[in-house]
């Protein structure tokens, strides 16, 4: 898809570019995207699932397309230019998916669907294109089919995932090959082979860093360290078709970092809770009770979300992960309330101020 095919998207993306330019290349408080989990059911049982879908959590809740239509209007008003429909597996109920896409009015957004590709064929890919989907993202874990299938918990999932990217490309949709990268695999041969495959097929590679959330809750050893982070930038420069959400897409040198996207990209659960991002399970509002504007404002009240971080808080900042993501039982359906964190922050500032005043006096 070319940006100029969707004038509203072009305009909003240009506003985003201008904001970033004026803000020294940083994302600041600019809203950019919505990641929405419309339903948490999935046909695969991925080891690292951040939504706990393999545990069967809240798999019967489907978000009403009328509610999604209202949220899309609010998002458009806020200047949000990209939407990622995800799950669970969004292609489980295709009729529902078409209704959701119609409700969003996709001509206003760079629209993408994140899927495991298992139920994607040429007909479905063509229909996604007809419904205004610009990009389809499919995760691949290895070029070894057995390794991928074992990780995903189902045979043939590797073969179907790779094939689905071909269907997507044939349909004129941007094919994105997603790779989850952690300390355990960042510099591995597996990742190199995947990067080569993606480049050779003219796909875009999206790197998602592994996070200690959901099924991998508390596993901070999986997080990328500084060496891994530097290595990924090297790969970015080498291949030139690699993206991360926190990298600056306008930097032709492929070096600059926009900053962690918490709150800039809002994550909505099937219950309507809005989290700071898909991997940081801190609730900043609920779409049934608050407007997106109010929710964003609330999210940025917490300094960790407001201040620039060159590291992904969930996948690279071990201090953040240990302090805010390791509370037992936390999930996308049982998130920490940001108000608690804001209150803690205020009281700690008050104590610091009191102590420094006492010291001075």
């Amino acid at each position, binding site marked *: 898809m070319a940006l100029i095919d969707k*004038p509203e998207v*072009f305009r909003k993306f240009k506003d985003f570019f*201008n904001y970033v330019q004026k803000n020294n290349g940083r994302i600041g408080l600019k809203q950019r995207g919505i990641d929405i989990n419309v339903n948490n059911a999935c046909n695969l049982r991925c080891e690292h699932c951040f939504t706990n879908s393999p545990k069967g959590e809240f798999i019967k809740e489907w978000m009403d397309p009328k509610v999604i239509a209202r949220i899309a209007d609010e998002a458009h008003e806020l200047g949000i230019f990209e939407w990622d429909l995800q799950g669970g597996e969004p292609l489980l109920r295709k009729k529902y998916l078409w209704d959701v896409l119609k409700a969003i009015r996709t001509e206003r957004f760079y629209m993408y669907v994140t899927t495991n590709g298992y139920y994607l064929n040429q007909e479905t890919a063509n229909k996604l294109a007809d419904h205004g989907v610009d990009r389809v993202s499919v995760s691949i874990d290895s070029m070894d089919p057995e390794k991928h299938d074992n990780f995903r918990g189902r045979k043939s999932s590797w073969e179907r995932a790779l094939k689905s990217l071909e269907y997507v490309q044939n349909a004129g949709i941007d094919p994105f090959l997603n790779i989850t990268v952690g300390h355990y695999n960042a510099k591995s041969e597996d990742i190199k082979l995947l990067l080569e495959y993606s480049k050779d097929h003219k796909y875009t590679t999206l790197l998602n860093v592994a996070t200690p959330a959901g099924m991998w809750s508390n596993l901070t050893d999986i997080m990328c360290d500084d060496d891994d982070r530097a290595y990924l930038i090297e790969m970015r420069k080498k291949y030139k078709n690699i993206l991360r959400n926190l990298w600056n897409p*306008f930097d032709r040198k492929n070096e600059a970092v926009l900053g962690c996207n918490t709150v800039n990209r809002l994550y909505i659960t099937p219950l309507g809770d809005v989290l700071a991002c898909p991997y940081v399970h801190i609730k900043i509002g609920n779409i049934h009770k608050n407007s997106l504007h109010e929710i964003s404002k609330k999210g940025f009240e917490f300094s960790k979300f407001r201040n620039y971080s060159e590291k992904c808080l969930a996948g690279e900042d071990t201090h953040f992960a240990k302090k805010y993501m390791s509370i037992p039982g936390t999930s996308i359906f049982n998130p920490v309330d940001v108000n608690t964190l804001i209150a803690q922050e205020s009281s700690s500032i008050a104590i610091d101020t009191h102590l420094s005043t006492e010291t001075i006096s």
Partner: protein
Amino acid sequence: MENELKKIFANVFEVGIDEVENIEYQSVEAWDSIGHMMMISEVESEFNISIEMDDVIVISNLKECIEVVSKYL
């Protein structure tokens, strides 16, 4: 105006100033849709204008860009 546009094209599309008249939309790696948006933004900022979407779509080389910008000055 032409010289300013040439500088913008050379800078955004990462080509030599003597090459800017020979390139077209999607003929070089840097002139993809993001590059197009960046070029439009730079042009708007340089000349303090706001280019309508109908004109944004028309521009696919330097000559067309000069024609479009001329309308707004």
